[in-house]
């Protein structure tokens, strides 16, 4: 089976979990014998590719082809990490020239799509896979040329990113891609429900494939240096500092926890438009000296943050999946996650909360800091759980391959 895949984020051009998910999915697909031609709009990180070759002894990495489309965006000269947030992009303020979602985003998307037809004509493939609205246009153009079945992979919608006040053009493109696709793959049941209810996609057209994470990433250089003494508890928020991820709830939790644990420090790892407000709020709460803002983290620093944390809190307002929870558990750090997150459908050994219930979250953080036995237990069972097949890279890849197969069969039926 040969897949022509259109992505957007790919290391080092990464604003969030989409890059991590794409790398994981492609790695898994190659291991399950699917040939992948990945097309991304940025120069891909060379260091990622040899890494793939290393982990696959029987050498399926040869079947990975990454097309680099010449881009006005500058070449890679230093990682732009967890870059600018989507809301800022919408306001079209000029931002860094290497941003994943640049100032002229729709033009970039169109240019990407214009090149997709040519690639589809050249590259032999059995179906087309696209990731979120940003590559839907490219997928549609490729399909117009090759007439192959189109799969729309959905990781998040504009409703998740921006609530009800999203960009109407993005909504339009999401609807167009989802309805034109032969099949849709959603990363959780909660997101599938949204796709069905908000976009009118028939439920039987949507397959749910939860993400895996795998355990073969190169471990960070150990011992990971931490700025905190070993007896200082660290409570971590990691993610974009935007409305969707609920960093403001995290700060309210920090205020409450600090009343019970005078030693605890709080780490806000990520960047985004809510940062200034958060810093003001930390000062108001009288805990400015104990809340640390790291900005966006990348690569080994992400692992380092998880490892120095005593507990990771994820108060996301909307979280179609929530890969951060898996990354936290893989680092052995217990995680508090929202009940409504996609990841809550598959993880059992974690606290599950209402993102707005800051008293409840604080109560759980205090307990985790107070009782090492609770921490150790969650850490051990979390690691055990992650070691099961469903969280591997292969299992989601196999399910994706099955979904591809259905798309090919459906495509055949529809002619």
């Amino acid at each position, binding site marked *: 089976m040969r897949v022509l895949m259109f992505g957007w984020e790919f290391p080092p051009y990464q604003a969030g979990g989409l890059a991590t998910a794409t790398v994981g999915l492609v790695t898994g697909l190659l291991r399950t014998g699917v040939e992948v031609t990945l097309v991304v709009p940025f120069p891909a990180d060379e260091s990622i590719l040899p890494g793939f070759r290393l982990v696959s002894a029987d050498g399926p990495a040869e079947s990975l082809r990454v097309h680099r489309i010449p881009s006005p965006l500058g070449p890679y000269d230093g990682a732009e990490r967890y870059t600018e947030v989507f809301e800022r992009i919408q306001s079209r303020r000029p931002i860094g020239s290497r941003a994943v979602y640049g100032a002229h985003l729709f033009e970039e998307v169109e240019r990407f799509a214009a090149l997709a037809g040519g690639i589809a004509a050249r590259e032999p493939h059995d179906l087309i896979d696209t990731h979120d609205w940003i590559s839907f246009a490219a997928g549609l153009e490729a399909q117009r040329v090759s007439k192959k079945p189109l799969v729309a992979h959905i990781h998040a919608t504009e409703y998740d990113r921006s609530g009800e006040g999203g960009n109407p053009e993005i909504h339009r493109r999401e609807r167009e891609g989802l309805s034109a696709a032969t099949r849709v793959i959603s990363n959780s049941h909660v997101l599938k429900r949204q796709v069905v209810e908000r976009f009118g996609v028939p439920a039987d057209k949507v397959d749910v494939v939860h993400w895996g994470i795998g355990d073969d990433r190169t471990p960070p250089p150990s011992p990971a240096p931490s700025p905190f003494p070993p007896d200082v508890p660290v409570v971590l928020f990691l993610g974009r500092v935007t409305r969707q991820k609920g960093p403001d709830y995290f700060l309210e939790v920090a205020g*409450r926890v600090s009343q*019970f644990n005078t030693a605890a420090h709080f780490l806000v790892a990520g960047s985004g438009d809510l940062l200034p407000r958060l810093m003001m709020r930390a000062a108001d709460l009288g805990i400015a000296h104990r809340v640390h803002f790291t900005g966006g983290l990348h690569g080994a620093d992400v692992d380092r943050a998880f490892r120095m944390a005593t507990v990771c809190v994820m108060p996301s307002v909307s979280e179609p999946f929530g890969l951060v929870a898996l990354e936290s558990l893989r680092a052995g750090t217990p995680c508090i996650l929202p*009940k409504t997150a996609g990841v809550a459908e598959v993880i*059992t*050994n*974690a*606290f*599950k909360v209402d993102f707005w219930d800051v*008293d*409840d979250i*604080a*109560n*759980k953080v*205090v*307990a985790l800091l*107070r*009782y090492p*036995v*609770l921490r*150790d*237990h*969650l850490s051990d*069972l979390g690691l055990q*759980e992650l070691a099961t097949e469903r969280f591997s890279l292969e299992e989601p890849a196999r399910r994706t391959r099955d979904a591809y197969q259905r798309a090919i069969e459906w495509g055949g039926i529809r002619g």
Partner: protein
Amino acid sequence: MTREICLYAQVHQPYRLRRFRVFDIGTGAGHFDAQQNRDILRRVAEKCYIPTNRLLADLIRKSDGRFNLALSLSGVVLEQLADYAPEALESFQALADTGGVEFLGETYYHSLAGLADLGEFKTQVLRHRQLIEHRFGCRPEVFRNTELIYWDELAPTILELGYRGALVEGADHVLGWRSPNFVYSAASAPALRLLARNYQLSDDVGFRFSQRSWGGWPVTAEKYADWIVSSPGDSAHLFLDYETFGEHQWAETGIFAFLERLPSACFDRGLKFVQPKTLVRRQPVAPLSFARPTSWADAERDVSAWLGNRLQDAAHQRLYAVREAVLRSGQPQLMEEWRRLSTSDHVYYMCTKYFADGDVHQYFSPYDTPYDAFVAFMNVLQDLEWCAKAEAPEVRMAG
């Protein structure tokens, strides 16, 4: 070939905790969720206790006492019945008035005190005996510990407390090739008789009754009576949760129709109903030795459903570590609260065995996860400990 049936059922409901958060510590907020406990008790009373009591009383009367059984009610369920569903308590008393029910002894709080503190264990057993005498006018002669937890070291204490026999699990690792359908004696206290649960026949009703995927389904009273007769031994000991009738197995499964037909199906096959107090007067066939605590729970038949992970161990140890401090406070209501915390259900909710499979443990839990159970319990315990310290006589004198 078995000729007798000994039917016994356990009635128990814990005092469930409020969602007690760290912010509630020291505020004087209550520890128990009266609303939830009332709602659950009333629901179970309506679905199980009242209809089952009525049916059993009818069956006893119609058979002139040839049909009979044994029950045990924990002290905490009796208290809740009196407070929340007095009509259900009356129906238990009406059932007792038929003369066909033997009441067994247990710990008042359905606790694990036997595993932790024998002094506390004795206190709770004696309090339970007083309550049963008060409510039902009879004195238990046979003992069943919480969840049938029993091991050799407990036997002398049970005997010392005045019981002739105890109910135990007919676990494979204890019985080996032997049938549970005999009266045994305790190896560590030969005067104590042991009645071993026939888990196969008991679970056919308790767990498998409504399982359509099971080869034995559907279980009719006639088929079940045939199984009992063909089971090797003298007397089949069928020990169940009382909530099996109407709660674990809903009325729609046909469980009440099964129970209604069971006595006549048994009489037709020459089977007799016999109570524990009668059996423990018989000569035992052999001694049984339980090297480690054995219970009727899970495939392991050990105590790992309550003390099987570090959270449960930590909570259990902390509970008994603060007992002295609570006692010293001289405040009876604090000791009462401490004892309600000793109810085994609280640590059962922290069980993570098979948690990932979403099994039976979670079905009975009022919490989203075992971790929530741990946090609520530890917060309450912390609050209780600080209340006790504040009330301690020496502190008051110093103040």
